[in-house]
């Protein structure tokens, strides 16, 4: 009864030391987050408020989108609407071509990963340089992110050191000191910032009342990407819109505390319009979101602010790693987003959950991640992606439990199962001679 996820998880777990390190690293982020949450007496109220703001915004999304777009246009921003990944990529390519761009620097954006933008632009002769250090590392390595906030966390200093030597970024061979490597990365990126003709950012929030976008980074790379080149393109998913600055204050207090256990990101950058003599474009991307909004069972997923805290707390993610999931976003939120994207391709992740519900207790915006995984499992029959072994077991259990005669016979026979070796049954189950429903007769007489 294995699944796509469990097969990869099993391979991941072969290296016990690495698994223990991986688990411990993310647990320590969870602990930092706990200390931050404990430091705000109003933490649980903030979660309620954040959830309510997201629900409100999502249920009035069309209005807020219009308000956002019209305010952004008033600020001199050129606003585009992309129905899907293909349209998004085409819009970006068109803007870049119109400006004769050959190289674009880019700060972190999971949306461009979702749309497959980098390979698309590269196929059209445009170089895209990631400027978030973690993203840059995995770009050079030709890998996908293993975590949405800490994309290269799966690599060690030595992995990065060897990679930088191979790519000519560092020349002090064997020096894998993180400070040295960071310095070399900074030098290398500085050149990229200065020679790029365009800069792209994602957005953590779009403020409807002002038309601003807000980008939170720890490295200042969004600011470098937008203050060197004259052309700024921001890619933003429809669900990132929030009503106003009051609501931003709620999310800004929670995002980084929940995600990395810091009181705030080092840089919280607000972009309202183009630089003098420059151009600013915002591309609002749907790519499935409006149809997910109409899915009553799963629309809560759209409340997510991509802090990554559900991954850090998930006992399965910590012990199986980001690459054990088939969708590019792993962990509890990734299981759910993958199912929204394509149940056929991503049903194999649904096993990666004990329903412990730690994810939804951690989530700063109260997305009911575990409850939704339970619901998705019920829908596998409709998708034709359920596990036959599991179905047969459930059928048998249901038959046995539904018929008292059968149940009594089976439980009377269970002690015979004691001879089954433990290699077959993964947990120790040793049956006593008499079940409770036989013992009760004596108890009732006492």
């Amino acid at each position, binding site marked *: 009864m294995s699944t796509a996820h469990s097969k990869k998880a099993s391979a991941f777990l072969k290296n016990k030391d690495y698994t223990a390190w991986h688990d411990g690293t993310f647990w320590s982020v969870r602990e930092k987050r706990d200390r931050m949450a404990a430091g705000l007496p109003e933490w649980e109220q903030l979660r309620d408020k954040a959830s309510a703001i997201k629900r409100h915004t999502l249920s009035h999304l069309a209005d807020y989108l219009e308000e956002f777009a019209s305010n952004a246009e008033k600020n001199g921003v050129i606003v585009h609407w992309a129905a899907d990944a293909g349209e998004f990529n085409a819009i970006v390519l068109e803007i870049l071509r119109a400006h004769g761009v050959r190289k674009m620097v880019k700060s972190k954006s999971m949306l461009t990963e979702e749309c497959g933008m980098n390979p698309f632009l590269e196929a059209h002769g445009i170089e895209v340089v990631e400027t978030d250090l973690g993203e840059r590392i995995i770009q050079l390595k030709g890998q996908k992110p293993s975590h949405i906030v800490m994309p290269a966390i799966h690599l060690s200093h030595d992995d990065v050191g060897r990679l930088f030597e191979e790519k000519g970024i560092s020349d002090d061979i064997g020096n894998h000191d993180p400070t040295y490597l960071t310095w070399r990365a900074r030098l290398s990126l500085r050149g990229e910032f200065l020679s790029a003709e365009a800069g792209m950012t994602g957005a953590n929030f779009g403020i409807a009342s002002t038309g601003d976008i807000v980008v939170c980074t720890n490295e200042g790379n969004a600011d470098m990407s937008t203050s060197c080149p004259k052309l700024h393109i921001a890619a933003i998913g429809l669900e990132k819109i929030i009503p106003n600055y009051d609501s931003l204050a709620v999310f800004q207090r929670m995002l980084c505390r929940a995600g990395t256990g810091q009181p705030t990101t080092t840089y919280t950058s607000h972009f309202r319009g183009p630089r003098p003599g420059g151009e600013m474009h915002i591309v609002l991307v749907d790519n499935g979101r409006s149809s997910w909004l109409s899915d009553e069972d799963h629309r809560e997923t759209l409340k997510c602010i991509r802090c990554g805290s559900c991954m850090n707390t998930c006992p399965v993610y910590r012990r199986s790693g980001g690459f054990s999931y088939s969708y590019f976003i792993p962990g509890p939120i990734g299981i759910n987003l993958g199912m929204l994207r394509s149940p056929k391709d991503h049903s194999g992740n649904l*096993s990666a959950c004990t329903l412990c519900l730690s994810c939804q207790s951690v989530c700063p915006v109260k997305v009911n991640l575990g409850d939704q995984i339970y619901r998705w*499992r*019920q829908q596998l029959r409709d998708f034709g992606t359920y596990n036959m072994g599991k179905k047969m077991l459930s*059928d048998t259990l249901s038959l046995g439990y539904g018929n008292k005669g059968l149940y009594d016979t089976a439980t009377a026979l269970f002690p015979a199962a004691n001879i089954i070796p433990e290699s077959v049954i993964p947990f120790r189950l040793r049956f006593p001679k008499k079940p409770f429903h036989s013992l009760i007769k004596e108890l009732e007489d006492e």
Partner: protein
Amino acid sequence: MRVGLFIPCYVDAAFPQIGVASWKVLRHLGIDVTYPKGQTCCGQPMANGGFENKAVPLAVKFEKLFRDYDYVVTPSVSCAAFVRVNYPNLVKEECLTASKAMDIVEFLHDVVKPVGPLGSFPYKVSIHNSCHGVRELGLSSPSECNIPQFNKIKDLLLLKEGIKVVEPERKDECCGFGGLFSMEEKAVSEQMGADKIRRHAATGAQIVTGPDASCLMHLSASAKRLGINIGFKHVVEILAEGL
């Protein structure tokens, strides 16, 4: 106050002593308890595995057997939580059992409110806070939440004289059982079980106790695999000790 005792399938077949202990504790505290005949399973294993439709006939049957009691009490948090959270969707007609179902720890703590002492138990025990007890029934404050700390299991255990109660590091991280999860994700499940039992053992406790025998069953397998010598008892078995 009439209480219907629900002894879940796996407790009935594999851990009847937990049923006996539940019966003894409730009777000792003067509760009018009945064990309705014909009960089997609440349907949780199939539903959590994705076959809720297979749980529907069991839910309907459960509702019929237990609906006339004032409380439905069971020594298993995940079963109590399943009835409370999911039965309103499964039993199409009016569902009374969802609001009446209580885990025995919750029932003793919130309804019966015994004042000690309740006999003695001179051992050091480490509490296993089962996920559905913590996050669905509220037996203790979830470590994720910034709310006042409490633990109803601990409150009850402290009614025993001579007991020393501790919690492991990562006090409410999942043990990795998860029903069909333990079969589908065998490798992760075993790793979680190993990590969890090591943390329980590190407290120096002689016994691991919890409100759900399925977690304890999983942990005892992990202990055996690792050669860790530690005992396992359901909370209600400790409460019943010496009564």
